[in-house]
């Protein structure tokens, strides 16, 4: 009984111990904030990459892509585990928006209507998805409207132009020629400078969806892939939507166009011609990647193996030899994005380790303060022993004291960490406004908001470590107190 009583008394009355309590609190809060931001960043990375990638990806590093993809897709779609599969093209090009904004961009060709069951790219689109969700979340929206908005948001995304040619012509009088030839293009939000206002609301150009863009890409032949300016392909598009995948690398410099148009512009479509020696050549169509979505509950790795067999069969040994060191690979979404994900994973481990190392300071602080307290309390220890307390009982007081400081300190640390994490984007914004400090650079960290989710399991581990550290810090002073001879302790000056 006396142990608990004295622990609680010392906790309240010995203000010097509050220093160690604050140290534990700050270290706990610091590690919780760091691990939550880094962990949240990693989780967001994974979720976002998974959402824009699909479950399994067949790809080849070369921009020239690979052939026989239609056969592969047909066989893959026949697998019971597969919900959908679609080819994707990736290349680079030059964009000129409204003849005013010119930039180099990554160009992705998508058969958008087929992507519904493959990945969640649709969820990144503002006009065809985001605006409806925003309106659904508005408390002023009636239940009936909300249902209607949900249905609108559920529609498959497309490159279809939202306005008539007359409306486009009216908005862009400088345009000449047949506007039917203008296809639809989706732009990454960063490409057209879409940002957030002071309240965090995304600001759109008023005339974004009547803007047009000229996209120039260079075809690449499988054999002797060289750029030839004479073969460049120019095509005009109307911007039909903007995409916010939340991955900065995509949003800042990527445009999305219909797959078949890009395939044609890159010279990767199916071709039959006669060469200079009179041989009839049939070149199969090519793609850069095939993205595959699985049904819920499907075994990712087993399905990947099945798809690998399909790919091996479709490529054949001749083509495999020809592809050589740059083969077609079948990867899970995590493998496909490994260079991003593992970098973030390593960064999380490193930063957590470094901050944990700093937190060891707290153990030494507790040790020093407890040592001081034991010295200061030497006579009290003698008194307690004179009324019959055992050595283990006295050690128990100081270990319990350390435990109490660990529990209270880590509890307050959790509270502080939660408040910081919960308001981290607001605090960051205010720091930016008041002091001009920007710690979170979206270009570096890929996301334009700081992740603010707390993982309960990680928090439990951090708190347990904080409590154990506090007890460890109190251990040596507790042993010293236990070993004190009662008479020597009573005579201590």
């Amino acid at each position, binding site marked *: *009984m*006396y142990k*608990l*009583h*004295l622990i609680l*008394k*010392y906790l309240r*009355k*010995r203000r010097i111990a509050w220093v160690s309590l604050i140290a534990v609190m700050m270290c706990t809060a610091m590690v919780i904030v760091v691990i939550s931001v880094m962990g949240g960043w990693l989780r967001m990375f994974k979720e976002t990459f998974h959402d824009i990638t699909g479950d399994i990806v067949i790809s080849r590093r070369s921009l020239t892509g690979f052939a026989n993809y239609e056969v592969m897709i047909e066989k893959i779609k026949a697998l019971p585990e597969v919900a959908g599969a679609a080819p994707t093209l990736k290349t680079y090009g030059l964009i000129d928006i409204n003849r005013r904004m010119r930039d180099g961009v990554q160009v992705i060709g998508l058969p958008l209507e087929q992507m519904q069951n493959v990945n969640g790219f649709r969820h990144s689109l503002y006009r065809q998805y985001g605006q409806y969700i925003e309106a659904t979340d508005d408390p002023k929206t009636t239940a009936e409207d909300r249902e209607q908005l949900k249905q609108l948001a559920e529609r498959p995304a497309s490159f279809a132009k939202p306005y008539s040619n007359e409306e486009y012509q009216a908005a862009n009088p400088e345009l000449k020629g047949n506007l039917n030839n203008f296809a639809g293009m989706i732009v990454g939000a960063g490409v057209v400078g879409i940002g957030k206002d002071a309240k965090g609301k995304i600001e759109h150009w008023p005339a974004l969806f009547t803007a047009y863009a000229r996209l120039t890409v260079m075809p690449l032949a499988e054999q002797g892939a060289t750029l030839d300016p004479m073969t460049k392909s120019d095509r005009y598009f109307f911007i039909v939507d903007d995409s916010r995948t939340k991955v900065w690398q995509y949003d800042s410099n990527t445009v999305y166009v219909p797959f078949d148009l890009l395939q044609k512009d890159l010279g990767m479509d199916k071709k039959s011609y006669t060469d200079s020696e009179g041989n009839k050549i049939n070149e199969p169509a090519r793609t850069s990647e095939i993205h595959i979505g699985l049904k819920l509950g499907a075994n990712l790795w087993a399905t990947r193996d099945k798809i690998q067999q399909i790919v091996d069969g479709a490529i054949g040994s001749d083509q495999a030899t020809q592809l050589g060191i740059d083969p077609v690979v079948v990867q899970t979404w995590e493998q496909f994005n490994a260079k991003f994900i593992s970098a973030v994973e390593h960064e999380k481990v490193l930063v957590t380790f470094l901050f944990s190392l700093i937190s060891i300071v707290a153990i030494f602080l507790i040790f020093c303060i407890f040592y001081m307290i034991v010295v200061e309390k030497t*006579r*009290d220890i*003698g*008194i*307690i*022993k*004179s*009324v*019959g*307390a*055992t*050595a283990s*009982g006295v050690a128990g007081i100081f270990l319990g004291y350390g435990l109490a400081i660990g529990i209270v300190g880590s509890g307050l640390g959790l509270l502080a960490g939660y408040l910081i994490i919960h308001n981290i984007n607001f605090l960051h914004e205010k720091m930016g406004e008041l002091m001009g400090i920007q710690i979170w650079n979206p270009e570096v960290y890929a996301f334009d908001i700081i992740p603010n989710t707390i993982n309960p399991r990680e928090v439990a581990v951090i708190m347990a470590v904080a409590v154990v550290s506090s007890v460890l810090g109190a251990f040596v002073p507790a042993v010293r107190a236990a070993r004190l*001879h*009662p*008479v020597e302790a*009573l005579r201590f000056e």
Partner: protein
Amino acid sequence: MAQLAEQPETTIKSDAAILRASGVRKTFRMGESTVTVLKNVDLSIRTGEFVAIEGRSGSGKSTLLHILGALDAADGGSIFYDNQDIATLDSAGKSRLRNTHFGFVFQFYYLLPELNVMENTLLAAMVEYSWFGFRTHHAELRKRATEVLDQLGMAHRLKHRPNQLSGGERQRVAIARALMNKPRVLFADEPTGNLDAETGRQIMSVMENLHKNHNQTIAMVTHDRTIARQADRILVLKDGKLERAEER
């Protein structure tokens, strides 16, 4: 004061020695040299007896009291409590002895500054009981502490901290703490040594009352013959030996 602490079984002075020292030796190392403060000390205290051990400063009287009270160990010889050699007890056994059989009053009171009067008095009981046991007996323990404090004239100061009390009041609280667990032997180490003459007299009156009206066995050390004379028997410690005994 008449109703002070309910005392254990013995109500009359018995010839049986409750505490006996036989050939007790104690040596201290002082730098390069050693000082022997107790040289084969023999002593016997009977149940209900009030014994004063008198000696000059540094004569070893406090050391002898600490050894008798199992706070310190002798280098040689034996201490028998109820005919049991204390040296045969392990550390926990000695702690139990100090908790439930012995009570200590020191010259400098030695109250815990963070605890109030009531909590300081309850300290020995808190050590004796587990958390659950203390909660179970809480009411009766508080009643006992209140009674003891009341009889020592400290009932009006229950919530005060030691730094809010006078020297005499602190010593009364120290006596209350020592009596809380109804000890069979009360050890008092210069109980008036830090008090003015009047307050010292009051404290000695409390001790005398404990002895006379409640048959409390008391072993007290003092350097003051006037104080020592209030005991049944005076033993003088000189040059490490109990040289002379004086009985009232």
